């Protein structure tokens, strides 16, 4: 088993290992095996298509957490120009679980804010696995208000298991930090677009996700509690996570059908981690379109539409 592949990706991994092997043999010898390689490549594509056409909500949850999935910084370098990271909440600390800064999208100045998980062990720990503490949310709030003052649109990127449940986080007011962001974001006088690029874990995700447009990558998830958490409370065991994921409907398609996600951005075949460049290009194009749409609204209309979106109620009748 290759730890960089999920179990349902394993047949694809095996096939690709074989192709790689043949390719190396091909380089060393005169035997023409191009035909064989291209046959296997086609097979790999159709195998991937068939596996990815039958993903369960739990499979998608695991794809959203895939160890090779592109993180915010991977997208920042591909989507934006002139990114300058800005640090700190001006009160306590800088939280590396949230990255923020100014950048340009096709020349237009924007504020970029999002969760950042770490890639290698040391980096994972430094970034606290993408679980922010109150100072992370307060940094995000500071940057959002900064963007508002200078009329820069805000682009947030969600990828977190949730806000960090720790002693210090509670002491410094994790609840208040999240609540304050929700309230302030609801009235910001600048467009806000949020994109779920991986895991949308509960209040810790929403705290940078109150927006005018919500986009989700095809294999991202957004939920009120992790499937494991839900399962351990309602089914009394985390082993029922796949049932909980299905019951809660955590996938991008489900949120789109509920009218909560505006756009589902398709991922490259096999998921964003198979082609980060292509994924970044689709993301960039969608953000561009969103900014153009929102740019046509007056600030008053923008705020009114956001309020209506946030307070909508479906009576079911």
């Amino acid at each position, binding site marked *: 088993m290759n730890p960089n592949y999920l179990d349902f990706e394993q047949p694809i991994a095996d096939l690709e290992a074989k192709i790689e092997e043949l390719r190396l043999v091909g380089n060393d010898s005169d035997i023409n095996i191009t035909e064989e390689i291209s046959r296997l490549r086609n097979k790999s594509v159709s195998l991937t298509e068939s596996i990815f056409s039958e993903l369960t909500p739990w499979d998608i949850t695991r794809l959203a957490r895939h160890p090779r999935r592109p993180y915010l910084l991977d997208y920042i370098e591909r989507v934006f120009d002139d990114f300058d990271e800005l640090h700190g909440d001006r009160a306590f600390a800088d939280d590396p679980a949230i990255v923020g800064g100014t950048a340009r999208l096709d020349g237009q100045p924007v504020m970029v804010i999002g969760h950042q998980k770490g890639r290698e062990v040391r980096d994972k720990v430094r970034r606290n696995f993408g679980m922010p503490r109150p100072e992370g949310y307060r940094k995000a709030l500071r940057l959002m208000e900064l963007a508002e003052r200078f009329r820069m649109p805000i682009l947030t990127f969600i990828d977190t298991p949730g806000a960090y449940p720790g*002693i210090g986080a509670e002491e410094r007011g994790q609840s*208040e930090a999240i*609540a304050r962001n929700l*309230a302030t974001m609801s009235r910001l006088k600048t467009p806000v677009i949020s994109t779920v690029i991986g895991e949308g874990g509960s209040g810790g995700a929403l705290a940078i996700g109150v927006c005018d447009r919500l986009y989700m990558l095809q294999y991202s998830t957004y939920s*009120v*509690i992790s499937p494991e958490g*839900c399962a351990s409370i309602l089914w009394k065991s985390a082993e029922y996570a796949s049932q909980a994921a299905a019951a809660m409907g955590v996938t991008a398609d489900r949120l789109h059908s509920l009218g*909560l996600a505006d756009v589902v951005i398709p991922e490259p075949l096999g998921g964003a981690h198979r082609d980060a460049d292509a994924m970044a290009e689709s993301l960039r194009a969608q953000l561009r379109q969103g900014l153009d749409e929102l740019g046509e609204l007056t600030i008053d209309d923008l705020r009114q539409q956001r309020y209506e979106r946030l307070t909508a109620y479906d009576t079911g009748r």
Partner: protein
Amino acid sequence: MSNWLDKIMPGSIRSDAKQRSSVPEGLWKKCPKCGGFLYKPELDKNLDVCPKCSHHLRISARHRLELFLDPEGREEIAAELEPWDRLKFKDSKRYKERLSQNQKNTGEKDALIAMRGKTLDVPLVACAFEFSFLGGSMGQVVGEKFVRAANVALEERIPLVCFSASGGARMQEAILSLMQMAKTAAALERLREEGIPFISVLTDPVFGGVSASLAMLGDLNVAEPYALIGFAGPRVIEQTVREKLPEGFQRSEFLLEHGAVDMIVSRHDMRATIARQLAKFTGAEPPVIDDEEGEPAVTPAEPDAQAESDE
């Protein structure tokens, strides 16, 4: 009467209880903090505050509003809102069944009650969470009712007070319940922009999605004594950090010390304190508070046992 009561009760009371077979069950209640056995009628008179250790026991939403509002001119807001199972959620039981079971047990349609009324003649809108209804969890009806209550406050330009008691967002409404956090926060931000005061009263317990939205957004955050309040539950934190939590962690007193709440107010002083404060915010004359207001029916004895027996 159950066996355990026979064992601990003095003989005289026991025989009395046996003679009167019509004595309703649950005439006694155990204080979750000091473990003392409390006589219900006495407890009622004392606003469900333990006469022995002053612990504030949980009370129902409707009872809460009855205690808080003046008797005259109460008017319920959005009482007609009914929950429905948009996601067709099912775990070991259907959400639909859970709803009807909780409705039957509590007599309420969902976990929030809102009323327009007065407190010591100060007009206001008050709402309260019903913790016995699915742990006071916030789903779409709770969110909508809260916003309608806020809108009444906004239209009539009177303050909003909310007594929260909730485990957080309602899992059975999944992502839809998460969105109620943003919804309630947005409504409160409007009040804030319009200069309408909002007082959040945190009562035992407040966690998760309710704590991380409306409950922490008061112009004043007020807590009842010794209420358990936080973002993540103590068990989750203990599992995450793998160390023992400090004494009194996430209690009201801990929150006061760390600057999360403005004050701790006992249930007996709640009406007077909030009315007095709101009158200052709105520039009204101080409310007339008579001598009996806030007088405990029973003088609390010094707590003799510090034993904490949290459920």
